[in-house]
């Protein structure tokens, strides 16, 4: 079933479920994400959005259901292998390496493009230098793309929240992901930062990376998303283009009403 549609869908979720004891955080959830779109997942607090991301990235094991990435069943595949297949993620609660500079953070993002291990690095074999140069270039390109090239040598620890959120995006982009999962990238940003972010996310999509976006900022979501999925108590409430979803009475009732 999944194989037939592998061509146009980069991500497919079938009958996904996650229970925490008696609580069903995600229940019987199925949807597909087309290649090259911005796909938003919205829902009230506690709807299960982050839990969904945690299953897509194998931080949690689903209690039922399957996940297909690029047509391949990746349910339970370790996160680092998903990353190597082309899946990237940013986090709701920042996961920046505070012990590094901005450039180093983004260079960590280029990890899958290199191959040197500890021994080769220790002996500084000739190819290591070559590789370091290449990784640095890719990291600088990602910083440039996010408009923060001037911050490259700053220590991450001293930077404001808005910049760190962008840094997470740059780090994820440095790997050249085909699919990027973004968990509330606009949370905590002011209006001008949010506007800048919406432009950045659109540019990410236009550069060929599919984006799955979890976001509470309705303006942002309705503005840039190609499709929107609404979760409520872990279940799919509605799915469609922004216009459709916005006017769906069940959505207005359950989501907008309760917020």
């Amino acid at each position, binding site marked *: 079933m999944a194989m037939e549609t592998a061509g146009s869908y980069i991500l497919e979720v079938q009958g996904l479920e996650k229970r925490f004891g008696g609580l069903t955080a995600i229940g019987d959830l199925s949807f597909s994400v087309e290649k090259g779109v911005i796909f938003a997942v919205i829902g009230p607090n506690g709807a299960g959005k982050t839990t969904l991301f945690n299953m897509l990235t194998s931080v949690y094991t689903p209690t039922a259901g399957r996940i297909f990435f690029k047509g391949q069943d990746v349910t339970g595949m370790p996160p680092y292998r998903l990353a190597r297949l082309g899946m990237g993620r940013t986090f709701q609660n920042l996961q920046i390496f505070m012990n*590094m500079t901005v450039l180093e953070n983004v260079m960590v993002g*280029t*990890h899958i493009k290199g191959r040197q291990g*500890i021994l080769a*690095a*220790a002996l500084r074999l000739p190819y290591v230098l070559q590789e370091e140069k290449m990784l640095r270039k890719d990291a600088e390109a990602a910083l440039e793309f996010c408009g923060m090239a001037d911050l490259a040598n700053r220590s991450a620890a001293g930077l404001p929240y808005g910049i760190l959120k962008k840094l997470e995006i740059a780090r994820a982009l440095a790997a050249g992901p085909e699919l990027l999962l973004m968990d509330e990238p606009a949370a905590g940003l002011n209006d001008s930062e949010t506007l800048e972010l919406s432009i950045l996310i659109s540019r990410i999509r236009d550069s060929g990376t599919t984006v799955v976006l979890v976001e509470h900022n309705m303006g942002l979501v309705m503005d840039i998303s190609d499709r929107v999925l609404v979760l409520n108590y872990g279940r799919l409430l509605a799915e469609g283009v922004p216009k459709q979803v916005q006017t769906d009475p069940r959505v207005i009732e359950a989501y907008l009403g309760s917020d």
Partner: protein
Amino acid sequence: MKRLLGFYIFAVLVLGLGLLFPDDYYVTVVGTTVIQNIVLAVSLNLLMGNAGQISLGHAAFFGMGAYISAILTTRFGINPWAAMVVSAITVAVISYLISKPILRLKGHYLAMATLGVGIIIHIFMVQADSITGGPDGMSDIPGLSILGHAIEGDFAWYMLFALFMLFVVWAALNIVDSRAGRALAAVHGSEIAAQMVGIDTARVKTHIFVFSTVIASLVGSLFVHQQAFVSPESFSFFFSVELVTMVVLGGLASVFGSVFGAVILTLLPEFLLVFEDYEVLIYGAILMIIMIFLPDGLFVTMKRNILHWLQKRKGAENTEHPSPGMEG
């Protein structure tokens, strides 16, 4: 190369000291112990400071290298250099096997598990009389020779240890500033974020654990040939704690911080005789004071303050004498 400038200065200093004072007890005899501890602290720091995986059993791997070399050369008459390689490979295999279950643990649990491994290995050294010579240890361990020239005298040993230590420091500096080193720091910073950029965190931890224990094993082999004698006393839990203290005193994840910590804590007991009786107490106190008041370590904090001060001075000078072509 600017990246290794500090290293070159350090190398000149270490080798220069040996060449200038070949007959000085403090330089060549105490100095060799200092150098040995630098190797141990720097290798432990890669695991503990960079990758964030504490080990309270590092001394045991140092001891394992020493004992395997001692046994192979005295009981089986194997060439010391070959024995050194066999020791290192054996330690690599053992620590690889141990790392699988142990490095899944975090924080206190990891500390307890490595403590346990260290104690078990130490007990084996004490109890397995027929293999290790028991509490009395083993003597008449042959020395080393290079191309037929026996390494004799304090100066020759100092130079051999120094060259090996410089190699280890150079390698550590290379690792820290590389894809592999960033992977270590990423594991330390956030395992989930590291995994999400494709880093196999379990593998990274295993590799650095094996790497650091093999370095400890190699310097253990050198140690045993230099001393011509070995006993379990040198590899107790307390020595592991001492090594941890060196790393913490210098500053986690700083190569020269560990060098600094090793120098200070090896020299202190030489000059402060009270140390003998209160050794454990003093190490405990140092650990606590540093962790509470200078969590980045003495060396790293000092370095930061000096750089800061220099920058401020430079900034002040620039405003006093504005010179064209110099930007603030």
